[in-house]
């Protein structure tokens, strides 16, 4: 009985995307460059707010 329930592939892909994107965005946190005065980490997080639901709408069933 020890296993996990099977997750829909679209949902699994969404979860993987969310975690991977967050890890990637946080890897930019030490960057000293600026785009319009704002760090790339800030822009990556802003983009995340739009990308997260769009990716699940595309991948989820």
């Amino acid at each position: 009985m020890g296993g996990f329930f099977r997750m829909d592939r679209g949902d699994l892909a969404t979860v993987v995307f969310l975690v991977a994107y967050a890890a990637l965005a946080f890897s930019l946190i030490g960057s000293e460059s600026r785009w319009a005065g704002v760090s790339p980490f800030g822009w990556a997080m802003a983009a995340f707010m739009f990308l997260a639901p769009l990716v699940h709408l595309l991948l989820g069933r």
Partner: protein
Amino acid sequence: MRTVEFVVTVLYIVLCVGIGIWANKRVSNSTDDYWVAGRKVGTFVNAWALMAALASGGSVLGVNALGFRMGIPYVFAMFAGAAAGFPLAAALVAKPLRNLRIRTVPEFFKLRYRSPWVDFLVPLIVVITMEVYVVAQLKAAGVTAVYLLGIDYNTAVIITSVVFILYVSIGGMWAITLTDVIQGVLMVFMVLLTALMVFSDFGGITPVLVQATTANPAYGAVRAMPISSYLGAFVVWFIAACVIPHLVMRVFSTRDARTARLSLNYAVLIYAFMIVFGVLAISSVGHVYFADLKDADMLFLKVIERYLPNRIVNGLAVSAVMAAVMSTTDALILAVTSAVVNDLYVRFVDPAAPANKVYRLSVAVTWIAGLLAVFFALNPPKLLTMLYTAAVGLIGSSLLPSVVLGIWWKRANAQGAFASILVGAFLYGYLVWFTKLPALSHILISLPVSFAVFYLVSSMTQEPPRDVVELVARAHSQEIAG
């Protein structure tokens, strides 16, 4: 007192109460209608209602204040967590929870773990954390009314509270859903209109950002807090939509699992537009025109006054902030009421209580919970955004492993849930109150520990009953008959 602004606000309040009275006809004889709007809410309505429930007073006043004080990267880390948390909830919990046909978060624990200790502990955590959240919202309403209506803080808090308690207590989830749609549209309209005015004034987004970051270079940089605080702010809100009752209950109210998933994602898209463009305009213009502002929570109201000087528009601005407060607070209060009545009273005191008795008791508990929040809001703590984020951290640390692993791990059992809830709650509380870790970073320790405890205790104790595992298995693929 400012008469025009006051009249506009009163008209808005009358509309909310009117909706509550209308909804009362639908809910007084059906607990399903009271708690989950009869499970008949469609995608469009639920998306706006979800967005309004998520976008609290903190999202209108607090987000711009936080951006102004802590910089764009910090505020976007926190709110990206909230935004990404909705698709996470849609992927991880929405479908099985909706298919189980439950009405409250504690009901999931009752169904999945069948433990009186867990059944007692979960509603208690829900009540404590949601009350803290409500107090924070009431302060936002009070501050706004003081500034834009010219009435005193205590009067504003009491009026706001009486209005939302009235329509929640008589109209339940139907009243909340319909008022939330109106409130959601109103707050998005006001924030985006203000942002548009700011961008027009500066000639676009880039010019206002360049001016703001030239005036204060730290505004665009990762400097305000240690990196663990950025990560903690993100994680607290990333997991929130999976466990916070007032958001999860919106999943239960939908027509079907597909509607739940779609509306979660549409809600985030609307929310993202409001937060991103609101912060880029309002927090930024603060560094250009209001750099010496002492109370950052007043920034949105200052910017409104500068760019939208019309008094009717000012009245709409007050209504928009009230809307943000009420649309979150009403759902929070319903979550508290359901935890007390549905999950404690009906579970432990009177399991055979008829629907009309449950309804009457719900009305009474809604008033008690609301008035208790008013009592604390009249003397509010100072760091409210941090306080209610800490409350969300507490509920996440204690309940997330039991919800997520309860849905996905066949071996998850009551002993694991009980141990994880206790350890998650007490460890988080200890770290917040007795250590000096960076703000909001406590969850980075308490959540993994809570997951580990759940896994270890479940692995070392007896397997859950086979029929429970079969029930959860069915909920992954089909709606369970009521």
